[in-house]
């Protein structure tokens, strides 16, 4: 009979704490949003499910020898998973629109203002005593504004691993919410006339330019900001495999089997950081709020930069594509296209917005390099 009691003590019913139950509910919510609302399901299904597993009491899954903790140690502590995903994303990226209109790179630069202003916001909230973030933590929160999942996970894994769960959840949730967050800001900062601007047809780009560009980018990174080289190096490597056209089988694997395997393992690893003790802390509220601010500011500065460029430029840019500079590929470019069509049903901005969109990936990787260089040391 005492043995039966002992058995009863091992059940989850007895061992589960309320915070764990709440985290399981949050995991289920993430799964609901991913499955029924289409919120970045490729990441949020593994993250949400991993979050549930991480809150099952009485068994080591996300700690010790547990499998999720092993995945975490293997791939997130080392940075291997986000870098391999970045390689795969590189192999899926087409720099054509960017090469056809390189000045849109400036839009990708401007949108990174969201990162740094959020960093300042986090430090200000610390200064006035609302939160208590270190410089590293503030930098990791800021990077949410880069709207780029693997970059955010890579930086948070180095600068603030204790916040990795919340930062990844915020980054992917807000990337999914781009169609809700961006349009009001875009409309508020532009006139209808500006939104109607049609842009000149993009020129065709030769294969040679596409092959050379990732190498050019890599060498510039090596010369200017080496600390961004792991991220942008893997990105450029993936892109070169694709554009070279001579290693199709490697490029296909990088875009399919490999990135899929790593996505599963990365998602579960991130989920392992959704344990109640780490996630149900007040800083999570700060991360979620500041992340939203970061997205909004990045959107705004992207749009404003486009307007500024139009002051000096002959070929006008539709300022809506500036919002795509936050990255969130390809969602933000689609949003720019959609808002543009509202103003002018014949104005297809999608390809024009792809330039700033991928520029935003480069921009936030460079910003990540600066943060790792100065906050990581």
């Amino acid at each position, binding site marked *: 009979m005492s*043995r*039966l009691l002992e*058995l009863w003590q091992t059940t989850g019913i007895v061992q589960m704490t*309320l*915070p764990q139950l*709440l*985290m399981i*509910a*949050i995991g289920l*919510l993430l799964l609901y*949003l991913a499955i*029924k*609302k*289409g*919120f970045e399901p490729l990441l949020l299904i593994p993250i949400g499910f991993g979050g549930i597993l991480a809150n099952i009491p009485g068994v080591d899954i996300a700690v010790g020898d547990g499998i999720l903790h092993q995945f975490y140690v293997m791939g997130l502590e080392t940075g291997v998973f986000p870098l391999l995903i970045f390689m795969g994303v590189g192999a899926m990226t087409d720099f054509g629109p960017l090469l056809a209109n390189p000045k849109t790179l400036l839009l990708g630069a401007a949108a990174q203002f969201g990162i740094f202003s959020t960093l300042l916001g986090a430090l200000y909230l610390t200064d006035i005593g609302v939160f208590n973030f270190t410089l590293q933590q503030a930098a990791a929160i800021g990077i949410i504004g880069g709207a780029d999942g693997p970059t955010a996970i890579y930086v948070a894994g180095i600068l603030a691993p204790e916040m990795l769960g919340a930062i990844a959840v915020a980054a992917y*949730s807000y990337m*999914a*919410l781009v*169609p*809700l967050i961006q349009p009001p800001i875009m409309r508020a900062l532009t006139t209808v006339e500006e939104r109607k601007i049609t842009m000149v047809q993009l020129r065709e780009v030769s294969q040679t330019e596409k092959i050379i560009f990732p190498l050019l980018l890599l060498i510039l990174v090596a010369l200017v900001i080496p600390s961004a080289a792991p991220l942008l190096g893997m990105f450029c490597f993936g892109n070169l495999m694709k554009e070279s056209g001579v290693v199709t089988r490697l490029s296909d694997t990088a875009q399919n089997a490999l990135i899929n395997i790593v996505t599963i393992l990365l998602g579960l690893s991130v989920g392992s950081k959704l344990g*109640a003790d780490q996630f*149900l*802390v*007040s800083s*999570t*509220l700060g991360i*979620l*709020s500041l992340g939203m601010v970061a997205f909004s500011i990045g959107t705004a500065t992207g749009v404003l930069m486009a307007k500024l460029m139009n002051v000096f430029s002959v070929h006008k840019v539709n300022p809506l594509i500036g919002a795509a500079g936050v990255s969130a590929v390809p*969602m933000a470019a689609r949003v720019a296209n959609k808002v543009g069509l509202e103003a002018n049903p014949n104005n297809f901005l999608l390809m024009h917005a792809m330039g700033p969109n991928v520029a935003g990936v480069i921009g936030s990787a460079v910003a990540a390099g600066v943060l790792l260089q100065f906050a990581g040391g």
Partner: protein
Amino acid sequence: MDNLLAQGVELAIFGMGTVFVFLALLIAATKTMSAIVLRFEPEVVSPTPDAGAHNGSALDQGRIVAIISAAITQHRNKNKQ
């Protein structure tokens, strides 16, 4: 040695017991779940796979923050006590 056999008997009884209890609970839970689903969703609907379209509403976003806030508040209050 006899002690080992006794442990084994105990383990066998509790083991089979747990297996039966668990699967019986699963039967009950499954039947309940199916009944609820079929009430709200009488016809078999096949979902559109890999839906690219985003159906999120502002509500969802509010809901995340609200639920997480509530969870954190509750957790902090509990820890204070």
